[in-house]
């Protein structure tokens, strides 16, 4: 049975229940009070991490790293919420987690950190991440990290990975129209940008938390500072959309009358 070195790239995003407001700064757009907003692990990267841990459990001898670029203090906060979920070793980079940070620069920093992992066996490497972040939302970073590392078996929008006993695997990727494309890959090294996958969020396990924190705190302390310059990009502006519609609230129609209105509405061109 194969065993893997699974590196998950994932950072943090503002809690989606927060109100976000863009502001303009000398270095480009940013979020108002960005450092004050409660943060969480980027959801699709979170699915990647849970899938990685599950795969590692099924393949003894495997190991999971989480490579995260974000403001150190925020990374520490988020760590508190995920460290008890699944076992991983943290590799931290201290820099922006902004949606406006250039993905090419972020990818170069992540690839540099991965290349620096002691003992990483690239022949057994599965590079995981979310297929898109909930901040920049471009779905471009992972492909570039893959290119830096020379991995050309890449998959995006992955919902399922099934490993066969010979180390080859089948992958389901989201494609248009609510379908999945099925691919067969010869085996590691490969890159998988995860969508939702199939696993529920793992329950907290304090023992796992203790084990993780032993390596995570030192990793945070030695987090390398990363500067993202956004050279060559000029934002003309970032604005909130016209959110509000003039909602007509219909309270006193019978269900049958509502049904008639709806049918009239949906059948009108």
């Amino acid at each position: 049975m194969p065993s893997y070195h699974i590196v998950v790239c994932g950072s943090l995003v503002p809690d989606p229940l927060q109100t976000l407001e863009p502001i303009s700064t000398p270095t480009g757009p940013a979020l108002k009070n960005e450092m004050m907003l409660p943060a969480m692990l980027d959801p699709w990267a979170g699915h990647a991490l849970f899938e990685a841990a599950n795969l590692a459990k099924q393949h003894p001898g495997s190991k999971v790293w989480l490579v995260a670029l974000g403001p150190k203090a925020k990374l520490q906060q988020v760590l508190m919420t995920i460290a008890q979920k699944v076992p991983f070793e943290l590799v931290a980079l201290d820099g922006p987690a902004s949606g406006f940070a250039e993905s090419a620069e972020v990818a170069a920093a992540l690839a540099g950190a991965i290349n620096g992992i002691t003992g990483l066996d690239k022949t057994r490497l599965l590079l995981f991440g979310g297929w898109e972040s909930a901040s920049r939302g471009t779905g471009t970073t992972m492909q570039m990290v893959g290119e830096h590392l020379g991995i050309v078996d890449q998959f995006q929008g992955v919902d399922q990975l099934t490993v066969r006993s010979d180390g080859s695997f089948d992958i389901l990727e989201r494609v248009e129209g609510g379908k999945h494309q099925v691919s067969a890959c010869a085996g590691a090294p490969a890159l998988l940008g995860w969508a939702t996958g199939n696993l529920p969020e793992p329950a907290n396990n304090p023992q796992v938390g203790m084990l993780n924190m032993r390596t995570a705190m030192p990793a945070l302390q030695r987090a390398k500072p990363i500067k993202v310059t956004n050279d060559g990009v000029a934002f003309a502006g970032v604005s909130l959309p016209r959110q509000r519609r003039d909602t007509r609230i219909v309270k006193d129609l019978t269900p049958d009358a509502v049904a008639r209105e709806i049918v009239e509405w949906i059948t009108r061109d």
Partner: protein
Amino acid sequence: METILFLAPTEADGTLSQNALETLGAAKALTAELAGSSLIAGLVGATIQPAANQIAGCGATRCLGVAGTELAQSRYSTDAAAAEALAQAAGATLILAPAGSRWNRALPGVAQRLGGRVDTHVTALAAADGKPAITRWYYRQRMEGTLTRTTRPWIVLLESGCAPAWSGDAGRATVENIPVALPPLRTSVTGLKAPPADEQTIRPDAKLLFVAGAGWTKKQADGLAHAAEAEQLILGFLKTAQASLGSTKSLVDLSGEGQAVLKFMTHLNQVGQTGSTPRHPKGLATCCHGEEPHTVGWRFIGERRAINLNAGCSWAQGKADVLYVADAFAVMREVNRLLAARPS
């Protein structure tokens, strides 16, 4: 002055998709707006001559292609190699390509190979002060930014429905075949997995998105849950109205946890922050609270209506055009009856 490469994969029959034609329309408009710029077409697929002929009248100065059976499959290694070769052969400074799972997967890596930059999910493309500028959304459709770049080449993936499709005379085009060294193939596409046609609930071309929320599975006024009736009402409606089915996260999560809920619901149906952002002219939300992480997925839905028992639900906060405060079970029962009774 830009050398603009319109870069598209061909469909199984060798022609171009609607979104590819829209991207060509945008590329042509931009070429005209940026003085001294030229347009080159680049095609990738198992067969490309039908596409080249289809756009023979588009005004491209050259038509470049990479064709071969390996390019029939939507696969990173081969697609990236083909796109890289075409970009280089064209000497492209700006590469405009249709968004879609195939190019979204491959072109970001191509930007890296070319030492360029890439923008995905672009919703508008225009010339501002003689320079190309793009518009896209940040933080999962919560804010919209417009930007320009000085780095070249610059790859732009345009979403569907954002530009008028190019239309013009077909003809007989000469394709310059660009040689490509493909890497050893370690991946092969073995097929597509989709629910049987009569169970396919996601219909991207439908006029209406019907969204079901967790309320369909909750205890109702009689103190009981009515999942079986919910299932029957929703499926019945989808069938007669030919609507596409969306869901909230809460509802698909319930399904994933194996509860006796709506069996046809999967994560692919989920709309919102960690789901999809579908495009439909109309949307009807039922038994769904309309919370922000869900409604950001409604960014590209035109007219919006909602049915909720609670007049204080979030749809009332300027998120829907009409909120019906009513029991969705009773309403949808009657909607289905009225639709079934309509002369076909």
